[in-house]
């Protein structure tokens, strides 16, 4: 038994002491900055708080910047893609990604260039092989080469691209397809359709979901039953056949832009059900809250109860839902186009580019045709990371 007079300072476990020392060191500097920040936080609005919290989610911030880059590229596609998506080069069918050299064959630095090259069918394997002559010309890859005049975003007349070669030998960053078209240019142009299909689709399904879910939850009774059974019906039909049936109804003679909007509509008509259910659930539980009762007692109308008292209660959820729903729309469009019932040639989307990768023989010989899939994955993952960050930031009760 130890001495009873004790209060002799027993040391803390090392793990705990280390943490204390670390915290003390961390907080011993920057006190003024913290106090200043605290003052800002006290008077910050909900949105400012959310932004501050989101800013601390590093993964989400990086994802946000990358995604913004994606969208900038999509908007400036004409400028960034070195070639027109339809531009063919018969000498470069299934050309692999160009090797970009920086040093001349004799060893001196000359900046980026590509050799003159072409592809030819190998008579033994029937595979297109890259052929580079021994004394092939060097074609420098430069920034802002002159091209034929075009209209950037349909309005700004331009005659330079971001990068390219000045000679007839093209540079294929990601290789070429079965008609010798530059895959990178096609992916950049396709990102317009693929990245923006999400917004339109989410907008429609969002309105449908919130409205129908809200009515279902607030009104209840027969209306609720009807809407819920409709949702179950829509949900129970296998998604891909349903998409296919709806997409098959798109007239073949419609233009690219019409098809695009039709696809958006198809995706959103199938996609609203999940949101509607959640909104209904939230409203069901929240309309029993005392503050809703208080609003009713002060004779607020149903409309103002829904919009002023109920919906703000799950705004954070809605924001997160939107960021999570967009990648689903992107995937939906990719699936449809991959199956050949979405975006049709000559328009391109990531899904329609992947159609070429359907053939295993082609794919095993020319793996770079899978590049569009990498972009789909990247976009979806980035959206999910952002959604994750938003969920943490938007929840006022999270620590």
């Amino acid at each position, binding site marked *: 038994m*130890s001495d009873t007079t*004790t209060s002799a300072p027993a040391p803390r476990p090392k793990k705990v002491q280390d943490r204390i020392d670390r915290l003390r060191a961390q907080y011993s500097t920057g006190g003024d900055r913290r106090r200043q920040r605290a003052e800002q936080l006290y008077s910050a609005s909900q949105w400012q708080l959310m932004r501050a919290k989101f800013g601390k989610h590093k993964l989400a911030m990086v994802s946000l910047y990358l995604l913004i880059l994606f969208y900038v590229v999509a908007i400036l596609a004409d400028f960034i893609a070195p070639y027109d998506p339809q531009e063919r080069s018969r000498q470069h069918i299934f050309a692999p990604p160009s090797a970009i050299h920086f040093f001349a064959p004799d060893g001196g630095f000359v900046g980026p260039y590509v050799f003159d090259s072409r592809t030819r069918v190998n008579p033994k394997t029937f595979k297109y092989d890259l052929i580079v002559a021994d004394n092939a010309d060097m074609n420098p890859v430069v920034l802002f080469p002159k091209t034929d005049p075009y209209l950037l975003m349909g309005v700004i007349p331009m005659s330079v691209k971001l990068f390219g070669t000045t000679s007839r030998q093209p540079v294929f960053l990601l290789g070429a397809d079965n008609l010798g078209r530059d895959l990178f240019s096609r992916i950049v142009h396709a990102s317009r359709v693929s990245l923006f299909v999400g917004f339109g689709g989410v907008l429609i399904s969002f309105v449908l979901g919130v409205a129908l879910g809200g009515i279902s939850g607030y009104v209840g009774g027969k209306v609720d039953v009807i809407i819920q059974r409709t949702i179950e019906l829509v949900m129970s039909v296998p998604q891909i056949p349903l998409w296919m049936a709806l997409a098959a109804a798109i007239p073949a003679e419609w233009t690219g832009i019409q098809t695009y909007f039709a696809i958006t509509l198809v995706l959103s008509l199938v996609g609203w059900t999940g949101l509607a259910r959640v909104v209904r659930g939230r409203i069901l539980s929240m309309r029993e809250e005392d503050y809703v009762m208080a609003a009713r007692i002060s004779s607020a109308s149903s409309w103002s109860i829904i919009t002023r008292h109920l919906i703000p209660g799950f705004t954070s959820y809605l924001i997160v839902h939107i960021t999570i729903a967009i990648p689903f729309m992107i995937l939906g469009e990719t699936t449809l186009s991959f199956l050949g019932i979405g975006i049709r040639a000559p328009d391109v989307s990531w899904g329609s580019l992947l159609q070429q990768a359907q053939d295993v023989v082609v794919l095993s010989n020319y793996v770079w045709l899978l590049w569009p899939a990498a972009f789909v994955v990247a976009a979806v993952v980035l959206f999910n990371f952002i959604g994750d960050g938003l969920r943490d930031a938007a929840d006022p009760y999270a620590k």
Partner: protein
Amino acid sequence: MTPSASLKSTEPRLKVEGLKTYFFLDHGILKAVDGVDFHVGEAESVGIIGESGCGKSITAQSMLQLVRGRGQIVAGHAVLRRKQGEMVDILSLDPDSAEMRSVRGDDASIIFQEPMTSFSPVHTIGFQIGEMLRLHTKLSEAQIRERVIAMLGRVGISNPEVRIDEYPHQLSGGMRQRAMIAMALICHPQIVIADEPTTALDVTIQAQILDLMRDLQDELGMSIVYITHNMAVVAENVSRVYVMYLGRVVETTTTERLFKDPKHPYTQKLLRSIPHPGRPVERLEVIEGSVPSAVDPPRRCGFFTRCPSAMAGVCDAAIPALTKVDDEHWARCFLLSDEKEAEDEWSSL
């Protein structure tokens, strides 16, 4: 507060010194508990009182190292005499260690303020109370059940054989609080920290619960720390009181003295703000304002902003030390003594 070194019987069961529990937030350090000393003797009841946000509950949770997340006990000692008689400084144990877990529930347990949320809704109360025995003893299931039923009967739950298999939602608030007490006492702990045990209950049940705890204390010989803002609980149940304000003990003495002759301006104002039945007044006296933020508090008396007798240049220049003002009576005020609190490595942060 010099511990009597020679006599073992007067050695307190729990002795806390210099406890500091801070929360490390983005915008500064929240000094929730900033140097608290107290001790509890054998089978003694002491009260810790103070208004919301003064650090009472964090003090309680620090005793069992239950502070998590951004919170950290940065300094202090809490020496507890365990059942077998050995002394252990609770705060020197690793919060996750087997030894710390063997202290929780067995030697020291806690009664939480909200019986509604302190029980798991998906397990029977019998299971949850029996869990304590399952963790701390080697009794068989049948023996555990027997003990739980006996304990439920002891805390005044009728029909314990039936109630043991019920879920928390099937019990009334008072019943749940009783079950909570049963859970805290089932292992016969040396010391019970009752964190506002009656706040959620109506007065008649309050009285019953307090009587019950007193009876159990006489029977089991445990020490109780009542943490409350309810003066009536203090007046009736405890022998000594610690008054807390902004993370510090500002006054401590016997209950009798505290009510008769409070020394600290805060205690004086606090006692004057209690309504006395049968004595009509125009308006109850209030303490203007509210407890200031404990995030990076300036080095001055915590009560400076609300004190009627604050002395500019004195009270806002340093923190008064807890000094002896009378027999068994300590207070922390420059009106009573000029002694200042010593600074340490955390003061300047």
